[in-house]
């Protein structure tokens, strides 16, 4: 399979999606919008990455989906976090925090060392 067409590290997109969905039931388009807004346009997820990721998460039973009306009265597929999705999200964010702190530390040190 081709790698995700974003510059996000592997697995990060899943985590971001889970986090976005955790707020409440939401459809695919809204997820993309929210990611873009919250990250101040840094994270832009093309549909070619978003939807396969959503389907994969649904397949792994981290998300569950149902068809519902939107505010404008159109039918859309709304995603919701499952219990194991919540667990996965917690574990994922924790390890991401640790990793980013560690990466930050290393980068800091090497910069000082270089100076």
């Amino acid at each position: 399979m081709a790698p995700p067409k974003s510059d996000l590290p592997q697995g990060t997109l899943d985590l971001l999606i889970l986090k976005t969905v955790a707020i409440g039931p939401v459809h695919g388009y809204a997820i993309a919008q929210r990611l873009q807004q919250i990250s101040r346009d840094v994270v832009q997820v093309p549909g070619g990455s978003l939807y396969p990721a959503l389907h994969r998460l649904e397949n792994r039973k981290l998300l569950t989906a149902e068809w519902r009306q939107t505010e404008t009265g159109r039918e859309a597929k709304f995603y919701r976090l499952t219990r194991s999705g919540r667990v996965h999200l917690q574990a994922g964010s924790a390890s991401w925090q640790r990793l980013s702190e560690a990466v930050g530390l290393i980068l800091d040190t090497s910069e000082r060392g270089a100076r």
Partner: protein
Amino acid sequence: MNWWGRLLRRKEQEAHLDKELHFHIEQRVADLTRSGIGEEEARRTVRQEFGGMDQVKEECRDARGTRWIEDFRPDARYAVRLLGRNPAFAAIAIATLALGIGINTAAFTFLNAFVLRPLPIRDPEAFVKLNGLDRKGRTQSFSIAEYRDFRDRNDVFSGVIALSPLPVSLGDAVTGRAATDYDIIPPGYQFAFGVTVSGNYFTVLGGQLALGRLLTPEDDVTPGAHAVVVLSEGFWRRQFGGDATLVGRTIRFNGRPYAVVGIAAKEFVGTQPNVPDFWVPLAMRGQLIGDKADMLYSDRAHRSVGLYGRLKPHVSPAQAAAAMNVLASSIAEGENATARISITDASTFVSVKEFMPLIVPMSLAVGLVLVIACANVANLLIARAAGRQREIEIRLAVGSSYRRLVRQLITESVVLGVLGGVAGLAASHWAVAFGYPAVLSQVPLPSGYKDAFTVDVNPDWRVFAFGLAVSIAAGVLFGLAPAINSAKASVANARSRFRDSMVVTQVAICLVLLVASGLLLRSMWFVEALNPGFQTSRLYAVSPGLTGESNSSLERRVTEQFALRLAALPGIQSVSACEKQPLSGMSPQTGIDGTALRVSYNRVGSRYFRTLGISMIRGRDFTEAETTTNAPVAIVSEGTASRIWLGEEALGKTIRLTKDDVTRQVIGVVSNARVGILWRPEDAYAYLPIGSKSSYTIFRAPSWSPSAAELTVRNEAARVHPALKAPVRAIEDSLEYAYAPFRFLAGAAGLIATLSLVLASVGLYGVVSLMVSQRTHEIGIRMALGARSSDVMRTVFRSSLRLVAVGVAIGLGGGLAFAKLLALALIGIKPFDLVAFASTSGLMVLVTALATWVPARRAASVDPMVTLRHE
């Protein structure tokens, strides 16, 4: 929705996917137009940022996890079309696979028939065998008295049955109720192989009935009271032409009348692969075997029956064994009583455990043949992949994912595998259905024993499932590497490396199988060359007996008279008597008081040694008077003499056998002979006088063929007494029976090894041919620059034999490991037999050299001008 649900609701899924993606796009377009961009412009932007719709859909489908099975149908259809376009490739690949899969399916058919398929009885899982062990842990049968105790006093079995095989001679006529003589059984000797069974036999097994009634417990109460018999369907058809009026009439067993009360259904086979001819109540056994009748039912030392039981629900075999052991110890009487009982599974004809030494090397060998076949097909696929490079590159370029492509290629090879499997199943069924009876008819076994190998070899669902599983596994096995290889659009270099490794694998495996077959062949030759220590040619054993006569003094008189008349016949050289005929299994053994030695023994008449051709080394033979009076004398083998009285004169010493309990003086020493089992030396032997009762008359008639011997003896017997029967057995035949298992193993291994050699050499031939054709241009240039044909030949040979050498080295190691599995079947040679290893390696190198030589010649005859002009 679960995996299946997703698979089944594929249409709905597709619609949903489409709807979801379109919703996204419409929303985005709406957002953009709201911010002031024209709709045309907005749509273009969205298309750009969203990516190709179809590609996104593809990836979503992939994420669903049911992709491979959804794609299977179109992929399979494409694969079949592709094969149709290249029929030569398809034919070779399918034939190769059919061979590999067929041989595995055939082997599995036998495994299934004997070992895996449950007995055709009611609830076979709960059916177990009771094995009795004596105080020293030796297996022994049960006595009928013991059986009755076990049957009535246990609380772990819902039923215990006893059975004991019984061969009988059939009477000369069948008399019906209509009182007309009904001469169905042709004149001459006819034997039937039946079983005497306890009265509850059919109830416990769940026997089905075709006609009349089955045996009941009432038939098995008073010894000799109910002369009734149930015939098996097969015997009824063979012997009586399926005559429905037979039920209620009388047939004769050993000259005694038995009423046929029923015919068992065809499906009912009892507990052995060979269906017995008939079943008679155990209470009639005494009458049928003659003079030991009284002992049979009361004497606990008289052990004649085997026991089977049906476990009660929720009782484990271990619990049953524990309960039976308590019971056994509470009724144990006498020295030979059953000390312990073990319970083994009897839900199939033979237990897997028992046949492991045969099953493991056999399955390994046929499995290896399949690996060789797969390697061949893998090589073909790799060669074909070179031709499909363009197709694959295009598919990758238009967005087919790497995984998708591998899946497509694997589907192709699985389709090939299944086609090969179908052909293989057909071939194996044909080979088993026609080949097995043909082979069996060649095996020199008496017909009764031969029946033991007559099993239903029709394929059942297990065989089909096995064939399918093997085909699919083979498809993946030979398809995986080439698929990955071609999907990566890899360079020719990697491909030739793969082909090289396939050649090495094939040579190595092939050599392992060749070594195995070489070892078994050497073992067979060794056994065939064994000198039994006596002359078997034109040596005959006769067991005379009066049918339908229990007057033992009359019988003794008649058989004595018969022996005398036999001795007087002109063609006969020498006549004697013995309790156990030569080459009919291990002789009984006994300890010798005062020594640690155990010896085999036999009771023989005078002139026994002269008749057999065993040489008398010192001392003298028994006299006629000594044998008839059972005088306290004995003759020992050289082996016994040297073990007990090393360096001393054995003659005149005394010896007392534990089972004989008479102090005997040694009057002669004879040379060692293998009179029990040909390939098991029984050097320590003792011969005792036979006394007045003889079991076998044994004679040598150098001018009589076996058929002549039988005819003459039959006529002579009839002259002595009309009821005297005297079946003749040629000892030469026994020698053939002894060779049979070794010939079978060597034959099977030889067949497997030959097939693998053919496959491996075809594989090597293909690889070298391909290499030569790819390098034609290079060879042309070389020759134009002055290389001679011999140089070219040498180059080709060097690259081929380098692979062969690596393969042979690995194969020798594998052969050594494999030889250990065969240790049980190797008589007279060590698992590391230099001759077998060296000669098979030589053969391997020779055949591979031949497979290289043909394409090498082609390379050497390349015309440089033609190649160069071709450019």
